[in-house]
């Protein structure tokens, strides 16, 4: 059993390696030496302290969202709406940052709480649409993602537009007291790293050691049996999505109060979708998520340097990560994927 689980963990490396080989071939096809290409990527991600801090700063909201997604995936739910939940969190935090005049020590916690509440509510609506309205969470989530983005655009071009007129870029910068304290010139706030650690440990403990975690697993593996065993699928579905929404919303708050200093037109720009890929590549294991997420952030940030160095399209980083996820889904151990909705009928009884 030990051996198997070690192997299970080890296989995460395989698609990464295969994807690296494919990317290397791609680089060769464009007449770029893979050594130079990957070298540029590594320098772009870790070449100096400011780059590493930038990688970490981008990693924070993506990891928060991904950790949340582990919860909803465990319950067998595809929370595509995570992108919109990030955006709503950003909007809620921005609202307080722009309008509330209280001391910093109070303002920042309030921003974070408001963001979590907004993300949770946004996810909760999708959940209720699923349980009561029979709207699949993928479709509900997509619709609510668009609504959140439209809402942002309305705010920055309407009521929250800067006094000098809208450029569609974003709101005026928040006052300093509304912003998370940053490390030097970077966009990374140490407080946000603490949030990630708390989120990872918290979700790990919830899924591992609580009755609610067990209920989610049961629900994810077989909703019908779970229902017969007394698990309320409606309540668990709503709560799982809301917890995910809260963490995603927190990620949105980090985005506006540390990466940016204002609400911007594309405040997330697809971080939620990246988080979905991160969770899939992590085989839905919360302990692996932070590392895979960090790898994603490094690849994306490294791609900027890669593009400048080689003048190739910077989508190369996206191709690299995309190929990895595809490989995991194609060749990944079916047993680790059993919690996916499509596979849940295969085993009625959990074997752990």
């Amino acid at each position, binding site marked *: 059993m030990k051996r198997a689980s070690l192997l299970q963990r080890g296989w995460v490396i395989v698609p990464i390696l295969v994807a690296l080989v494919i990317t290397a071939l791609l680089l060769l096809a464009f007449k770029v030496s893979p050594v130079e290409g990957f070298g540029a990527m590594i320098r772009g991600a870790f070449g100096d302290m*400011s780059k590493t801090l930038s990688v970490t700063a981008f990693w924070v909201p993506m990891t928060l969202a991904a950790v949340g997604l582990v919860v909803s995936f465990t319950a067998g739910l595809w929370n595509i709406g995570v992108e919109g939940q990030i955006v709503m969190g950003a909007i809620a935090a921005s609202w307080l940052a722009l309008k509330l005049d209280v001391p910093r020590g109070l303002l920042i916690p309030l921003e974070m709480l408001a963001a979590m509440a907004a993300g949770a509510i946004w996810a909760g609506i999708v959940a209720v649409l699923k349980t009561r309205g029979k709207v699949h969470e993928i479709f509900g989530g997509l619709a609510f993602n*668009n609504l959140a983005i439209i809402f942002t655009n309305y705010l920055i071009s309407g009521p929250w537009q800067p006094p000098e007129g809208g450029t569609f870029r974003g709101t005026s910068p928040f006052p300093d007291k509304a912003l998370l304290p940053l490390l030097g010139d970077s966009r990374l706030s140490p407080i946000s790293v603490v949030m990630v650690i708390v989120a990872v440990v918290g979700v790990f403990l919830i899924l591992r050691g609580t009755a609610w975690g067990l209920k989610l697993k049961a629900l994810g593996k077989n909703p019908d049996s779970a229902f017969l065993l007394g698990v309320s699928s409606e309540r668990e579905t709503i709560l799982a999505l809301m917890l995910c929404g809260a963490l995603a919303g927190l990620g949105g708050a980090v985005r506006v109060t540390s990466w940016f200093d204002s609400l911007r037109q594309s405040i997330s720009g697809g*971080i939620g979708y990246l988080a979905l890929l991160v969770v899939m590549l992590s085989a839905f294991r919360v302990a692996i998520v932070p590392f895979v997420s960090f790898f994603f952030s490094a690849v994306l940030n490294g791609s900027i340097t890669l593009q400048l160095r080689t003048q190739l399209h910077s989508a190369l980083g996206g191709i690299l990560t995309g190929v990895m996820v595809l490989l995991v889904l194609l060749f990944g151990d079916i047993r680790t994927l059993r919690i996916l909705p499509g596979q849940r009928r295969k085993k009625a009884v959990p074997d752990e």
Partner: protein
Amino acid sequence: MKFKKMWVVLASLAALSLLITACGAGPVELDEPFVFGVILVGPKNDRGWSQAHYEGGLYVEQNLPGAEMIVFESLNPADKPEATLEGVVDDMVAEGAKLIFTTSDEFEEDTVGAAEKYPEVVFISISGDDAWAEGQDAGEAPSNEGNIMGRMPDMKAIAGCAAALTTQTGKISYLGPLINFETRRLAASAYLGARYCYQEYRGLDPDDLEFTVTWIGFWFNIPGVTLDPTEVVTGFLDGGTDVVLSGIDTTEAIVVSGQRADLGEQVWAIPYDFEGACDEKPEICLGVPYFNWGPSYLDTVEAIATGTWEQSWDWNAPNWDDLTDNDVTHVGWVDGPALTTELKADLDTFIAGLADGDINPWTGPLNLQDGTAYLADGEIATDFQIWYLPQLLEGMTGPSE
């Protein structure tokens, strides 16, 4: 005697040719490669704003051996959430860039920060005003940051004139992007050009001319976010408009009008931004105002390479002698195939008037849209008044903010 004369002629010719080579072209030669960065908000092949900048960079490479461009495309949070202007600048400087063009008003604020971080590198914030000593944001740019913009209002006045000369229904519509100083100033300029030509060359009352502006919300269509430009143009034409001017980066105005023309309607369009924009539907295209960044980019690179660059805010005028000479003009106007010879004669008169200063559409009396007086009778607008136009003008239909 004859012989002597020939010598004189030959000698003067030789001297002249020496003189020409010395002063005329005066090519700067680079002792070492000069790397410059160009940061684009969109893709480098968007057939619009970003492509024009990319081609400006290529022009420098072609005309100055040793100049080498590094370009970063699509720097916007929707396409690249992980990228920041600062991060891209860090990388460009690491690659040896001594000059960086940041080519969007979205980058204006961050460019100031980057310029402060790298005082040895020159930054040109395109379309900005932070380096304008008389501007509203004077003093915001550090001394290693300059601004460049082409004087597009002149070209928009020509576009408005062409529209007014052509319209049969007396209804012209302007497909606007988002509302800010730049877009208000361009729409207003088109309107002023239209009024002038409607009155002077057609002998009609300019107050009868209907000029409607609809803002879609951004520089191009974002489904679900902006108004759909296809629908907006359809609405224009359904309402009796027969000339549509585009102020956005993409081609909907000419495409939709072209489809209506295929159905037998008499409609025309004037696209924007990109020299080749008429190609979409030449037979209804009256012309296109476009940006040409090559000359100003080249001047900047040469000035830095020779150590003569100084901070400035350049609002570069067109080359009036030939508005399509891309070696010298900063903004251009190309006549479209749909412009009739007869109308072209009037348009050329208008252009000649603009060129020698006899005509200035920005001459008072001029009221803002809400009726406030902006220019007194005979008063000519300053650059400040044109740049920072606070509203649309009286007589224009459409929101000012």
